């Protein structure tokens, strides 16, 4: 009983039927490697009422969006596995966002929460056509219930996509974000997960290229009763593609976080460059972190690096700030702000940056007025 009860009505459409078949073995359990550190029981045990997704859109010129019953690309980018398979079986319509202009276009998607005791399965397909530029903001609204979303992003030759995804104060969220990059494409993503009872994102980038670049960044913060899990998988399939992965986390209280970053460089991917790093700041000795950056390289012509760190705040820096009169909590906030800045500074949409800064202040990760000061200082300098 639970989430899979819906499979009793076997779907007939091939895509859905295939996904349903994949689900016959059930949803993942604690023993499933990719779900070892994230308690899947909380997600699957409860019976939930399915509700249609609610998505608000803000579009600018050069982008179109429409709800369709089906699209040939759906299910070809994201693998239908576990929760993504459940989405494939149960989603209703597909929101297709298409960037068609050479000038950078912006689209903001606001995806509503499911509501108490409910589940929703949004399905989003984003297509950046040849040589088109798109700024995509995917924002999940806070609220109760479980959102099980699949977002598929296709970059046609020469396309550029800047993608910011916000998980701010969510309840339960399981997301699959799958990206397909063709020749000379550039994809940059930043995922912000601040809090959440259970937030899990599987980001999978397929670098076909050649000449494709992917920069996947993320920042997360957890405290008591919060758990976030980022699984990032970068697949270097074709030659001469580049990937950079930077995730930074701050863990406090009894919060827990998982980072699993995997990059594979295939045998047909010479000339690849592949970097991963995951840094963590542990503000409490009761917080739990599982980090696992790993590389698998199957040819000799590759530049690669990876590493993970976890440490406390620098006591020398903390003392230094306090010795100048800055109260302890403000000093701490200055240091966590500085730590997350590496990711935050890359956000290109001003409204999103403002919202993120506010979220940082609310969560005690940044000092209030820091941005205003910065603006006024640069203003006064100018």
């Amino acid at each position, binding site marked *: 009983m639970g989430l899979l009860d819906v499979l009793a009505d076997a779907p007939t459409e091939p895509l859905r039927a295939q996904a349903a078949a994949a689900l016959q073995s059930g949803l993942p359990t604690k023993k499933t490697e990719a779900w070892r550190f994230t308690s899947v029981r909380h997600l699957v045990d409860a019976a939930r009422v399915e509700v249609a997704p609610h998505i608000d859109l803000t579009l600018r010129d050069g982008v179109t969006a429409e709800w369709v019953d089906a699209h040939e690309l759906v299910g070809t980018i994201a693998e239908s596995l576990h929760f993504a398979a459940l989405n494939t079986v149960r989603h209703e319509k597909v929101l297709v966002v298409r960037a068609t202009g050479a000038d950078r276009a912006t689209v903001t998607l606001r995806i509503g929460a499911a509501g108490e005791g409910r589940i929703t399965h949004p399905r989003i397909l984003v297509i950046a056509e040849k040589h088109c530029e798109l700024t995509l903001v995917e924002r999940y609204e806070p609220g109760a219930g479980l959102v099980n979303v699949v977002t598929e992003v296709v970059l046609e030759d020469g396309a550029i996509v800047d993608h910011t995804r916000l998980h701010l104060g969510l309840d339960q969220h399981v997301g699959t974000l799958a990206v397909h990059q063709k020749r000379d494409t550039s994809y940059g993503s930043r995922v912000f997960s601040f809090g959440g009872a259970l937030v899990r994102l599987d980001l999978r980038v397929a670098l076909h290229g050649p000449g494709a670049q992917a920069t996947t960044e993320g920042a997360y913060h957890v405290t008591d009763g919060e758990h976030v899990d980022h699984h990032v998988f970068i697949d270097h399939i074709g030659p001469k593609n580049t990937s950079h992965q930077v995730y930074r986390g701050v863990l406090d209280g009894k919060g827990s976080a998982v980072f699993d970053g995997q990059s594979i460089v295939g045998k047909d991917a010479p000339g690849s460059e592949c970097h991963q790093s995951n840094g963590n700041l542990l503000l409490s000795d009761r917080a739990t972190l599982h980090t696992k950056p790993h590389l698998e390289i199957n040819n000799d012509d590759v530049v690669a690096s990876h590493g993970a760190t976890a440490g406390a705040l620098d006591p020398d820096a903390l003392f230094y700030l*306090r010795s100048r009169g*800055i109260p302890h909590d403000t000093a701490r906030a200055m240091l966590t702000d500085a730590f997350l800045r590496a990711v935050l500074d890359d956000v290109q949409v001003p409204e999103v940056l403002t919202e993120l800064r506010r979220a940082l202040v609310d969560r005690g990760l940044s000092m209030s007025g*820091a941005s205003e000061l910065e603006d006024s200082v640069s203003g006064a300098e100018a």
Partner: protein
Amino acid sequence: MLRIENLHVEVDGKTILKGLDLEVGKGEVHAIMGPNGSGKSTLSYVLAGREGYVVTKGDILLDGESILEDEVEDRAAKGIFLALQYPVAIPGVSNLQFLRSAHGSIRKARGEKELTAAEFMKLARAKAATVELDKTLLKRAVNHGFSGGEKKRNEIFQMAVLEPRLAILDETDSGLDIDALKVVSQGVNKLRSPERSMIVITHYQRLLDHIVPDFVHVLLDGRIVRSGDKNLALELEAEGYDGVRQETAAGQSGQASV
């Protein structure tokens, strides 16, 4: 102004200061000289209130009131400033942001109004000029990628902006060439005032050619063993710490035999 009485301090269970007495009057500049391991840096940290420096006996009084219970930031608000021997680099925090936050916090703690951004910028620029701090360093991350001289100049710049009543300069001369030493010393001298007391901690006499102290004390094995005027520094330079050490040892054994 500042009175240190029979101060005993432990660090990691080891006693470093063993009954230190010192009195610093308003506007006075006191030099504390001593060899490595004598407790000079411990003295500076315990005055600033750093965690891990445990006072086991004695007291530190500022205007007659003990500050031992005060947190680091509370002491700063009371006007204590420590210029560090090794200023810390803080990537991601701009020098200006840091200093404005410090300046604002101190004023707030004292019940004074914080400056506006424009007022603060004006103040910062004026003070930067007095210590010849390159203005581009204001916007850079705190001490990040600064040369040794720039770091020390930045400390004096912070002191100029925060205007402490008691400034403790811990080995401000270390790592400076003669030109940088001159600039830093001139900066310090400009900040000398009848309202501001200073404790200048140094291993070598050369700094005291530039910052001329009113009093010189020799710190040896956790206690002040000799005090005098600026000539004591010259004497030390000629004889080295061994001379004082032998005298002290002789004095102690003499006492013991009475």
